[in-house]
């Protein structure tokens, strides 16, 4: 009777009190699952969009325009050299470029004609192909060409000019940066909302059992004896709910992965990826919210009183 407390473990007491009220468990877990699934879906969306954004930025390629004197052979050779130096992981980190390609003048004109679409007729007025031979460098995802790289390329004798991403792409980058900030703000609010939902659920679970808590208090239980089972209950519920929510989001992604076309050549199938960070983040969020909610909820429930 006078042995140290905390022997009839808080975990086993948490499991007992969960079994005593299965209905409450159902309500709590569904609520948490819905809340976490919403965050999970949002998080997945953001991760995917960020991925898409970095793929867009890849499109912001570099065009190395060859000097008039340089022929097809020089172009091919330059492309081969650049492939070797840029597309392999270097000592300082991953590869700079995803692809390096030589495009000769004729190829470039054909492509230009295609891009002009219905305006292609315009090109018929041309006496001569005005386009130069060029090497196109597509940067690796997340990489953008630095000024010293551009200077290095410009210094090559066979290079006339280095053309960087077209201006609208840098506009897109600005926009995606400000969208990214908005997404962070929204995400933070969403996160706070879910912490609130989880702690409300914990507090309701405690409120439902307030008679039992009063009894424990009256027979001499220490606050910690009362608190830990509730915290553990919240954490267990949150873990279950985060697993369910992850499954839900994953299932949703599978359904959405129907073939579909996105602008700028992006494929919905690639876009709708479900990285492992999502379930991990949900679990972390759930456990944090469970612990915080449990501690706050029980703290409050244990110390109002006055009337029995």
């Amino acid at each position: 009777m006078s042995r140290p407390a905390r022997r009839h473990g808080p975990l086993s007491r948490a499991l007992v009190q969960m079994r005593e009220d299965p209905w409450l468990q159902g309500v709590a877990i569904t609520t948490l699952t819905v809340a976490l699934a919403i965050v999970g879906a949002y998080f997945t969306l953001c991760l995917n969009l960020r991925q898409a954004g970095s793929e867009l930025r890849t499109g912001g390629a570099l065009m190395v325009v060859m000097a008039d004197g340089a022929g097809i052979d020089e172009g091919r050779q330059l492309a081969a050299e650049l492939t070797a130096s840029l597309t392999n992981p270097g000592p300082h980190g991953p590869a700079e470029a995803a692809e390096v390609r030589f495009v000769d003048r004729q190829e470039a004109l054909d492509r230009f004609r295609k891009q002009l679409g219905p305006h292609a007729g315009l090109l018929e007025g041309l006496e001569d192909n005005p386009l130069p031979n060029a090497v196109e460098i597509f940067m690796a995802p997340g990489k953008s060409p630095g000024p010293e790289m551009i200077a290095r390329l410009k210094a090559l004798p066979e290079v006339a000019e280095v053309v960087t991403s077209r201006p609208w792409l840098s506009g897109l980058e600005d926009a995606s940066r400000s969208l990214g900030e908005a997404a962070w703000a929204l995400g933070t609010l969403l996160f706070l909302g879910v912490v609130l939902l989880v702690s409300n659920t914990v507090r309701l679970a405690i409120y439902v059992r307030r008679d039992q808590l009063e009894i424990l208090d009256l027979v001499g239980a220490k606050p910690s004896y009362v608190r830990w089972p509730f915290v553990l209950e919240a954490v267990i519920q949150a873990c279950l709910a985060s697993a369910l929510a992850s499954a839900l989001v994953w299932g949703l992604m599978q359904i959405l992965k129907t073939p579909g076309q996105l602008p700028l050549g992006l494929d919905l199938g690639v876009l709708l990826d479900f990285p492992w960070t999502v379930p991990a983040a949900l679990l972390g969020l759930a456990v944090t919210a469970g612990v915080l909610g449990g501690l706050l909820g029980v703290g409050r429930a244990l110390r109002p009183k006055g009337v029995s």
Partner: protein
Amino acid sequence: MILLTKVGKRYHDRPQPTLSEVDLRVPAGQFLFLTGPSGAGKTTLLRMLFAAESPTNGSVRVGGADLGRLKPSQLPLLRRKVGVIFQDFKLVGAKSVFENVALALRVAGGRGPDLVSRVEEVVAQVGLNGAAQARADTLSGGEQQRVAIARALVGRPPLLLADEPTGNLDPGTALEVMRLLVQAHAQGATVLVATHDPKLLGLVRGARVVRLAEGHLHEERP
């Protein structure tokens, strides 16, 4: 053991104070009956002895400690030394009889075979051995009352407070229960029983009887 000095209690939503200037000294090892009409303040007075209620005036000392000065962390330790039979039982409806009784030991760290045998012993003493695994909220009124009694007795507390412990019991069972309280008293516990039942007063030889009425305490049988 217990010393109330000029204790007053007024609930904020009541026009009259429930207790006024109550002085009471209960030496360790006494058996005391607290009587008085319904609403006299018997429950209020008992609740002050384990700091479930605090007096508006005056001081309450139990086992040497001034309850008004008790640190929150000391409260559980005090309560483990006081066995209370609540007038409304205060059982955990979803738990079994066994677990309700065991609760009083578990909160103090009790476990293992010692706990099991002690709980079974007390449950048998109150005549509920057949129902040890029944959920408390399926019990009859008298059965619930006996669970409450068992929980108060199980830790052999030095102070026992019984609030109307036989209100739901037939005379035979009531007698058995009173015997348990007398037995605890014989083993050294201080016992306070709040009751309306004049029959109980005769059951305990040499017990002191005090009566609460209109906020004041009167010695009836010293």
